[in-house]
């Protein structure tokens, strides 16, 4: 197994990493030792970016939750996540690590700082020092960039202009780039994955630049003392490029962010990718190609996102395409890649599809292809059951059950501690699922509170009732299965037992109640 260096460029990159965080929290299989996500977006206040950053921090907060040892008084991690026979829990199992973006002093985080010359509130014109350019260069700049482009304030990103992004993001290559700092511990088997959209500004310009920097430029720097650059150059690199999958409400040809231009931008970028990024059989130059390219798009643009040209208000609802893109990351890591020299330069192209969709356009689990179904349904439903129990029944009710009575009542405090953080994360998970219902209508669960909780999972069959068995349903079945686990990890920290009990309880109750699990 290897580390994964994951780059999310622009708003789509951030949203896909949000989806991946949800999948990892649920325990979806991703064959990596640890994941190092790096979010790249010049619009530091972007709502999507901030939301993903917060979620990643919350995930790490759960994993690193510390507990004071009663005997020594020393603080120790409450969750060990050791793989052993008596530890089945996969919730939050995958380590997600911050990168150190500090040049002189440690500065851990998930968002890579992008420097826009002389402060953040700069127009593109001043970024390229337009006023001091020679007349000839000015004329060239005027040919390449419109007046609106030149006057664009960069604090809110590139607003769908890859031609601007390709200039500003060239700083990846600079010698003191923080990008180099990220890769200092890169090992030969580690992998790199880049998430970007192809129809916007930041992602479509940042992706080829980043790839070029990793594959070519560092290695070409003869004076480079970067010991890891050779490893990075030869690394297995995958990418998901997200093609248009939503429309933006309002706007006309004069507005910067305009969904009418999505397709034309996509075609132009695809043409460039085809020439420069996708390695073909006849190519002999292996240096700049991708190993795996995942493409995804959605033709259903009937539901529009609200128009927000960057900043804190740009918070788009989660979309099924982002979830599928996050699955591409897991797919890339789960692949056993042994490349021989002859095929090293050939880019393997992957596409995603679903089997069918409901009459109303809704997608439920039974609409997914078999591989997707197997990867997604069980872990996601376990986390959903966990979340539903915590939000509909609550810690105090759990405290009254045999399994819950193992915990001090203070464990279920809503104001502080582990339970509070878990509850907040699960709230985010609920919102995430709700948002997906609003966009592409991925509705795997219904929200009818009166119904048996297991029958709220859509498109599943019930097991037949057995003679002389309890045949419990709904919450009673889940509680029974949680109670059955009350002896697990005896003597361990309650935080670890709590996750283990819910992981096993949710898994067993689904097997007990539903067919084909």
């Amino acid at each position, binding site marked *: 197994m290897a580390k994964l260096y994951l780059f999310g460029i622009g708003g789509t990159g951030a949203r896909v990493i949000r989806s991946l965080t949800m999948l990892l929290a649920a325990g979806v299989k991703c064959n990596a030792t640890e994941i190092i996500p790096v979010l790249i977006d010049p619009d530091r206040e972007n709502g999507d970016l901030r939301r993903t950053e917060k979620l990643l921090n919350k995930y790490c907060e759960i994993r690193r939750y510390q507990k004071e040892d009663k005997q020594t008084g020393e603080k120790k991690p409450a969750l060990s996540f050791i793989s052993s026979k008596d530890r089945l829990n996969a919730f939050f199992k995958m380590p997600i690590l911050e990168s150190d973006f500090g040049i002189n002093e440690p500065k851990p985080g998930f968002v890579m700082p992008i420097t826009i010359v002389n402060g953040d509130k700069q127009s593109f014109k001043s970024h390229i020092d337009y006023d001091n350019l020679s007349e000839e260069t000015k004329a060239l700049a005027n040919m390449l960039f419109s007046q609106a482009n030149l006057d664009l304030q960069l604090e809110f990103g590139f607003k769908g202009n890859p031609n601007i992004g390709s200039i500003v993001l060239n700083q990846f290559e600079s010698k003191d780039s923080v990008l180099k700092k990220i890769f200092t511990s890169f090992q030969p088997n580690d992998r790199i994955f880049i998430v970007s959209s192809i129809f916007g500004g930041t992602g479509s310009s940042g992706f080829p630049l980043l790839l070029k920097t990793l594959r070519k430029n560092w290695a070409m720097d003869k004076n480079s003392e970067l010991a890891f650059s050779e490893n990075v150059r030869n690394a297995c690199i995958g990418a998901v490029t997200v093609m248009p999958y939503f429309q933006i409400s309002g706007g006309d040809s004069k507005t910067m962010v305009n969904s009418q231009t999505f397709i034309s931008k996509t075609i132009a970028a695809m043409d460039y990718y085809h020439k420069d990024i996708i390695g073909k059989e006849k190519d002999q130059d292996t240096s700049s190609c991708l190993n795996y390219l995942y493409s995804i798009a959605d033709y259903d643009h009937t539901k529009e996102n609200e128009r927000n040209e960057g900043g804190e208000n740009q918070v788009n609802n989660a979309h099924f395409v982002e979830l599928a893109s996050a699955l591409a990351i897991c797919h890339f890591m789960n692949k056993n890649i042994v490349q021989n020299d002859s095929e090293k330069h050939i880019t393997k192209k992957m596409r995603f599809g679903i089997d069918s969709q409901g009459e109303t356009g809704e997608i439920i689990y039974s609409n997914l292809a078999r591989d997707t179904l197997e990867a997604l349904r069980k872990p996601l439903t376990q986390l959903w059951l966990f979340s539903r129990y915590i939000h509909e029944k609550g810690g105090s009710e759990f405290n*009254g*059950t*045999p399994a819950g*009575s*193992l*915990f*001090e009542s203070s464990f279920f405090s809503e104001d502080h501690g582990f339970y509070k953080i878990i509850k907040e994360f699960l709230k985010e998970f609920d919102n995430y699922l709700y948002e997906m219902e609003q966009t592409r209508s991925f509705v795997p669960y219904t929200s009818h509170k009166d119904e048996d909780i297991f029958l709220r999972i859509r498109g599943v069959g019930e097991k037949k009732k057995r003679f*002389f068995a*309890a045949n*419990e349903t709904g*919450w*009673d*079945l889940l*509680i*029974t299965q949680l*109670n*059955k686990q009350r002896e697990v990890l005896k003597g361990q920290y309650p935080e670890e037992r709590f996750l283990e009990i819910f992981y096993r309880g949710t898994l067993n109750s689904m097997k007990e109640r539903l067919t084909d699990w």
Partner: protein
Amino acid sequence: MEKIYNLFVPRLICEDLHNEMYQFVEGSEGWAYYDILGIIFILICFVSALFFYKIFDKASGNRTTAWLTQLIITAVINFAIAALWIHGRNGDPHNWDIETFFIFGFGIVNFTLAAVYFLIFSFIFKNISINNIHTPFKFPNK
């Protein structure tokens, strides 16, 4: 069982009934009616408690009211068996002659004993139950 019945029946109920119940059952090699009836009652309590804690081991049963209902059902069954059995032995061919008031009294004794036995079995079986470990009484943070 004889000793337990001996505590209540002759003093509180009826000396005649006590004497009849003390007789050995024909062909039983030394088993009195008390013994036979007592074993049946204990078995009923045992099976009833086992049913409650292992078979009817539902999350919804983790309530004192559910346990109390089961206890009352067990006690009523025992009351009914005792009363009907004695009533059946009045007249031919057994020629017992126990007044209805005393039959009812004997039923009450069995009702009470069944409740006590059910309670004792409850404390044994609750530890092997999945959902009902807190009934009849809850000991938090065990």
